[in-house]
């Protein structure tokens, strides 16, 4: 996985057929080139595969690349140039949307590292499973009692609101813990160059921890969303 950039086969310019030296434009005829398909979102911005990202720097890079690729600037170009600019621009925008959000960023990184294409599934954290099941029963019960005010309804609502707060703070805890691993990951990425023994195991365990935290957080979010809807729709 090291030195990915060097291992890319040099491609030929679609226009003048010379070897493309520059990243996105042919050195010789200055025509726009499709971004190498192997490029991941980090590489698109010329960034290392780090989880901590300076958002202002990312925005600056995004604007700079947008000025290079945006279809507005290829309006009078050939169909080929238009198509390339559209594709490059679309990928750049998707990459930016993913990287600027820490949650989407870490999810993307895990998929990238593990070679999986699909999203990380939401999974209930084992120690909260029982509580959440109970909570969902309460929510159902609350929906059943109907719109009319009653003591039972008020009580259920009180329970649910308290639970909502509890789950919400739990979610925050997961999120914080997840973010605290970002630095650890970045440090390890930097040290990887030394290829110490045991790195692979550490790397795998770190990825697994982040993945578990992310799954749990996503799960709690869905639960919270259900609760929000339930409480809103059945509010007298």
């Amino acid at each position, binding site marked *: 996985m090291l030195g990915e950039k060097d291992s890319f086969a040099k491609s030929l310019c679609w226009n003048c057929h010379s070897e493309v030296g520059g990243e996105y434009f042919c050195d010789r005829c200055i025509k726009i080139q499709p971004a190498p398909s192997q490029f991941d979102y980090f590489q698109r911005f010329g960034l290392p595969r780090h989880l901590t990202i300076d958002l202002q720097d990312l925005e600056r890079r995004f*604007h700079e690349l*947008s*000025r290079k690729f*945006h*279809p*507005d*600037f290829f*309006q*009078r170009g050939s169909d080929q140039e238009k198509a390339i600019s*559209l*594709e490059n*621009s*679309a*990928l750049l*925008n*998707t990459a*930016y*949307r993913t990287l600027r959000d820490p949650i989407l960023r870490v999810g993307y990184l895990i998929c990238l590292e593990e070679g999986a*294409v699909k999203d990380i599934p939401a999974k209930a954290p084992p120690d909260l499973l029982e509580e959440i099941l109970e909570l969902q029963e309460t929510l159902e019960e609350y929906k059943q009692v109907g719109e009319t005010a009653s003591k039972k309804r008020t009580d259920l609502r009180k329970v649910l609101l308290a639970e909502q707060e509890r789950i919400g703070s739990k979610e925050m805890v997961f999120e914080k813990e997840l973010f605290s691993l970002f630095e650890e990951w970045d440090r390890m990425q930097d040290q990887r160059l030394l290829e110490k023994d045991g790195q692979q195991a550490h790397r795998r365990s770190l990825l697994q921890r982040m993945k578990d935290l992310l799954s749990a957080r996503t799960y709690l979010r869905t639960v919270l969303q259900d609760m929000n809807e339930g409480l809103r729709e059945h509010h007298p």
Partner: protein
Amino acid sequence: MSTIVGIDLGTTNSLVAYMDGKEPKVIADREGRTLVPSVISVDDQSWIVGEQARQRLITHPKTTVYSVKRLMGKGLADVGEECKYFPVFLSEKQPGVIQVEMGKYRLTPPELSALILKEVKQRAEEFLGSAVTQAVVTVPAYFNDSQRQATKDAGRIAGLDVLRIVNEPTAACLAYGLQKKKQGVIAVYDLGGGTFDISILKVKEGIFEVLSTNGNTHLGGDDLDQRLMEWVLREIEQEFGLDLQKNAESIQQIRLEVEKAKRRLSGEDLTEIVIPIKTGAVYRRPLKRVELESLVNDLIDLTIGPCRQALGDAHLSPQDIDEVVLVGGSTRMPLVRRTVQEIFHQEPHCEINPDEVVALGAAVQADILAGGIQNMLLLDVTPLSLGIETMGGGMSVLIPRNSTLPTNAKELFTTFADGQRSVDIHVYQGERELVKDNRSLSKFQFRDLDPLPAGMPRIEVNFTIDANGILQVGAKDLRSGKEQSVEVKPSYGLSDEDVTRMIEESFTFAKSDMDARSLIEARNEAATILRHTERALKQGEPLIEPEERNRIQEQITALKKAMEGDNHRLIREWIDQLDKATIHLAERLMDSTLQIGLKDKKLSELP
């Protein structure tokens, strides 16, 4: 190179602007009017668009249509209440495509919008003195794919290459950015004739990045008018015992009167609605601004939710907004301004005319595309999430709302049965969990797959939303690496073949329009020559032989007969004949006048 114009195709009015050096300018007509009322009328001869059509709203309600924009990209089921008082009859051309019945014509909304586009195109051509073939056209930010596609179709039918569809609030922001050098986080509140949009942008060093957008495509000045009109109708019924609901002329008359009253109340606290009723009676009603406000307050409140949603989507609170800009005629209402102020905790701005600012911005975008302005770039977003139907009718989002455009998503598809030769994908737009609650966009069918066991084919589908906010779909067979053929069935709107046919028909229309104009001109000319000839004949009768007189009389009869027909060429033919037949008479008359003129003059006085 010919100029790329910017067109604001509005619900109530349309405008065209161009870049005059470094300044965008709106093009006015000979009378100095910049607004072209988005009204279309037809008489038995030709199409009438703009101010003249607007004047026919009351006199010819059954063949005059307004607010066509509200029908764009919609099916009949989508327009209920809002078109309740439409004087023209609406039907469906095919499921998902409305057609408007005007006299003997049946036109779809894109064809009607094309007539407006042609009118503004012609205005621009007259002003610029050259052909206009390319344009940037604006749409409400909250327009979905079908509505955008319908607008693009309208351009094609009008003979305009629509280089870009731009969102109205963002266009307005471009104009402000260029002319007022605005920077920072800007909220654009756009309440027009038929639609409401809110867009939040970050403007930094020439980059106009839309952070989020929201809106309501069924909310605008028209709805306020309707509210006020229903109130007046009820009052008239109580006062005079007259139910005017079914009377198209009265409905239009009342609609126009209340609209004027509403406008006056933006500047005054009190006005009077005066409506003469056919029975000879007159409905008079003083109306206070506060009364109007309490009548429409709930409608204006409908803009609050989308503003909050847009703020939330941009992860901002009202304090983060540096400036609020107002766009659209309805933002002249003090109630609207107060509401905006409540939402954003600050006084909104409107230094540029809210009717013109969108067209000006469209001209700016046109100049960017032409390569004129190079340091400005607009990065807009898609207003609605795009997704596909999953098993059980769920919506699987591929591209979330507020994604910067262009954007794309790739998805792998395969088959469920052995030997399956095609795969269907149904694409939706919207924010709900189930596809049935969202808007169906199109069905795509990927055909001619190699017969393989179930699950073996690997079709990679690339969903791209381009900078216009319009979906493009491409597919590749990953096994063979070949492009996969796709058949597109739009759920709303016209097929490509429909549009091509309409372009052809519009040429025929153009021809019949021209024929109609030629006929009018020929008849006018014939009337003039007849008047002259008959007078000459009276004066010159003693100067010519009866034989000659009879010949001229015959020609006159022939020309009069030709005038009754509608062949302008035939009329011209007889005008020429009559012209020739009267040459001798004219000469004799000239001679005699000369003699009469000379009779009383001395030789020395002659020139």
